[in-house]
């Protein structure tokens, strides 16, 4: 804390824009925030960094009046302020840009900006005023958006600008952005940071919540680190390093290297040619992707979320329709119509750990044993006869898999929703890996998973490779891609920008490719 106060005094003599003192918040037995103290000087960009589930979002929700803190006080511009609801937060000059935008899709930009900040009961005057203010803001801060465009027609980056405009229209002095770059292209992210710097110069205070070290280093003046509900440190950005922050975040030296032998690739298992996927709005999301994966090889797909990786996994997994050609061990698989579904893919020898295990990989209300059969309910080992399933055999199998994969608690009767994120993931990974597939599709294997489980899951992936299986790994965590992959493909805007050898590249080069700055085609 002492560091922070010094930092504050050096920057400005004015009181802090925000001071949180002793904030605690529990959800049932889970202590999401524990005695949090933080002071943000006026006119600075303040980063809050921490792993998923460290309590960053909860803290900001308290500041925005979404949750009521169990204890502690909030001071805005030096005055103690109660924030029981969002309305009070807005009145106190706080604006929030959520990770998932809170926009009405079939409203115009203008209507979205005005919503909740109307002047009087009739709309005409409000809309006219907003139109003028938007023009000014666009000029001052590089925030131009067509005020009459429908939100659903705007790109993600423009939608985010609308969120910022909403906050500024409400004359917010303090702007909170929750993981703002997760959905942005690198270009859009750069633009965002330019906007934020412009706002800072106008005296606004900005809180940037992220788990990306690079953004903290680039954009912030000070940074606070959260770990498991507590604020472990607040330091000046100029006086710290990514390594130091990373260590603070996880509480010990990060083990970035995964122990693995060099790969000995065998014959081609998966061959993908000119794979294309269109979304429900007929927009092409995967724009002709071709690659091969050999037996005993991990191909890692790097890229910013939303550049076609999900579509790639879902097309290969039989969830999305696609065009092009794919073949497994030389046999072509259909990409639409009959035979292009999850059942057929599994029968062909493709296992799939989906990116979003809670939405796709598990039925949260089903018991662990029911989830072990998910996707494999047709397995002859689980059938008693032609009519009925053999649930006893299924439970026995579940018990065995839970033991092998160290799922805790090892109780097959527990519903999936009762397990922690890491143990849920272990159930999914156990189910898919134990099938002994020729090809494993695995997306975001360690998202929301605790450190111990991360190591375990990484070891399982490498072990499967060493058995001579082909693995397609998709992750937005560049570290994970670098340490696990035998070959890296970088995706940008539905294309593969190029392939790299993890031994002969670095984060800088990959980052450039992820931003779309590199020659296309294989290297």
């Amino acid at each position, binding site marked *: 804390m002492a560091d922070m106060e010094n930092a504050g005094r050096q920057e400005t003599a004015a009181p802090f824009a925000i001071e949180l003192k002793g904030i605690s918040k529990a959800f049932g037995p889970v202590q999401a925030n524990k005695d949090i103290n933080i002071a943000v000087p006026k006119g600075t960009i303040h980063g809050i960094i921490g792993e998923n589930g460290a309590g960053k979002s909860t803290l900001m929700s308290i500041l925005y009046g979404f949750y009521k803190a169990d204890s502690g006080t909030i001071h805005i511009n030096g005055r103690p302020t109660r924030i029981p609801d*969002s309305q009070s937060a807005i009145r106190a000059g706080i604006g929030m840009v959520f990770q998932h935008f809170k926009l*009405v899709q079939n*409203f115009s930009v203008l209507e979205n900006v005005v919503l909740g*900040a109307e002047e009087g009961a009739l709309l005409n005057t409000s809309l006219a005023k907003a139109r003028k203010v938007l023009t000014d803001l666009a000029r001052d801060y590089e925030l131009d958006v067509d005020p009459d465009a429908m939100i659903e027609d705007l790109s993600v980056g423009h939608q985010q600008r609308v969120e910022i405009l909403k906050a500024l229209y409400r004359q917010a002095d303090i702007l909170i952005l929750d993981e703002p770059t997760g959905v942005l292209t690198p270009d859009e992210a750069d633009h965002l940071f330019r906007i934020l710097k412009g706002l800072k110069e106008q005296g606004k205070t900005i809180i940037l919540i992220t788990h990306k070290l690079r953004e903290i280093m680039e954009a912030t003046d000070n940074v606070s680190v959260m770990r498991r509900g507590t604020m472990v440190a607040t330091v000046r950005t100029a006086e710290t390093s990514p390594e130091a922050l990373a260590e603070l975040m996880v509480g010990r030296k990060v083990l970035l290297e995964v122990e693995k032998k060099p790969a000995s690739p065998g014959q081609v298992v998966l061959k993908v040619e000119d794979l294309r996927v269109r979304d429900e709005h007929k927009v092409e999301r995967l724009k002709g992707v071709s690659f091969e994966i050999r037996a005993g090889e991990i191909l890692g797909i790097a890229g910013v979320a939303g550049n076609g990786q999900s579509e790639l996994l879902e097309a290969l997994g039989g969830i999305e329709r696609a065009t092009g050609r794919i073949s497994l061990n030389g046999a072509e698989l259909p990409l639409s119509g009959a035979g292009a579904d999850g059942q057929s893919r599994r029968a062909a020898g493709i296992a799939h750990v989906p990116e979003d295990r809670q939405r796709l990989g598990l039925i949260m209300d089903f018991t662990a044993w029911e989830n072990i059969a998910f996707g494999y309910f047709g397995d002859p080992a689980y059938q008693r006869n032609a009519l009925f399933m053999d649930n006893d055999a299924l439970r026995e199998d579940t018990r065995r898999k839970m033991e092998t994969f160290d799922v805790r608690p090892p109780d097959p009767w527990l519903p999936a929703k009762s397990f922690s994120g890491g143990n849920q993931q272990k159930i999914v990974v156990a189910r898919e890996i134990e099938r002994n597939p020729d090809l494993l599709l695995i997306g975001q294997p360690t998202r929301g998973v605790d450190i111990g489980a991360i190591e375990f899951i990484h070891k399982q992936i490498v072990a499967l490779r060493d058995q001579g299986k082909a693995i397609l790994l998709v992750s937005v965590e560049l570290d994970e891609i670098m340490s696990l992959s035998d070959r890296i493909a970088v995706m940008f805007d539905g294309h593969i920008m190029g392939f790299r050898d993890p031994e002969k590249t670095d984060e800088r080069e990959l980052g450039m490719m992820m931003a779309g700055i590199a020659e296309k085609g294989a290297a």
Partner: protein
Amino acid sequence: MDYATLLQILDSTLRLATPLLLACLAGLFSERAGIFDIGLEGKMLAAAMASGAVAASGMSIVLLIPLTSVEVVVISPVMFGLIAGILASLLFALIHAVASITFRGNQLISGVALNFLASGITVLVAQRLFGQGGRTPPISGDARFNPITLPFAESLRDVPVLGPLYYEVISGHSALVYVALLAVPASWWVLYRTRFGLRLRAVGENPAAVDTAGISVTGLRYAAVALTGILCGLAGAYMATALQAGFGREMTAGRGYIALAALIFAKWRPVAALWACLLFGFFQALALRPDVVERVAGLKVPVPFLDALPYALTVIVLAGFIGRAIPPRAGGEAYVKER
């Protein structure tokens, strides 16, 4: 078909479309705010019973208001009936709101439940009050909404073509018919030109946007459901005190569901709702005159066919064969705050 018959049919079209239109606009407010309401039928029925019963009781008050001179204001039984109908409908709307907004219950199931509740309880209460097998006694005079002759209707009657149209079809309805017609532009205006309308549409599309803007989702939705209650109250009162002379068991006869169908047919838009209700009212008017249908169509069209037509058309619209009906995005789902 001669002109006189056509006018007759159009006249009853307007009469029959009125309760559909009121109920349809009622449903529009609720559903645009994200609360599905298949309980329009029950609310209409409750309102019909309450208004019929109160109007039949003959209660009236004469108010003397001393202004410059003493104004005599008579609140007639039919007005008391109307108020009672609105209150009864509001009560049902409130239960629906508590179940589906406060307790985040299943909106469809709540609607089904309230329809049954209304169906039974109206008969119970009417039987208790009047002992006539669940009906109210026939009402007349100032216990009913009586036809209003619009200005110049008599004098313009002889103008060719338009005169009779004005006299027969447009003039000569009860006040609630005109209220229903005026409710269409009024609803449009509220929905698209006021702050309340903007917020109401927003809460039906993305309640999180409304919540983070510092507006109460619950408050807005309660207000929308209350509007639904009021409009259903008007629809029910019209049934018992204008279209017919008193309440009879199950007198709404599925009109709440036809209104729901019209709402989908109109894709949740007020002006389109008017046309949809007039169309469905027209089918009902035709069903009353099978002779005309037979003469015009040249073959015998079974009445049940006309009865089923609104439902069949709605299914076709729902199937997306005539444009696509996309309901409000947050419809049917309770709002739960998320991190």
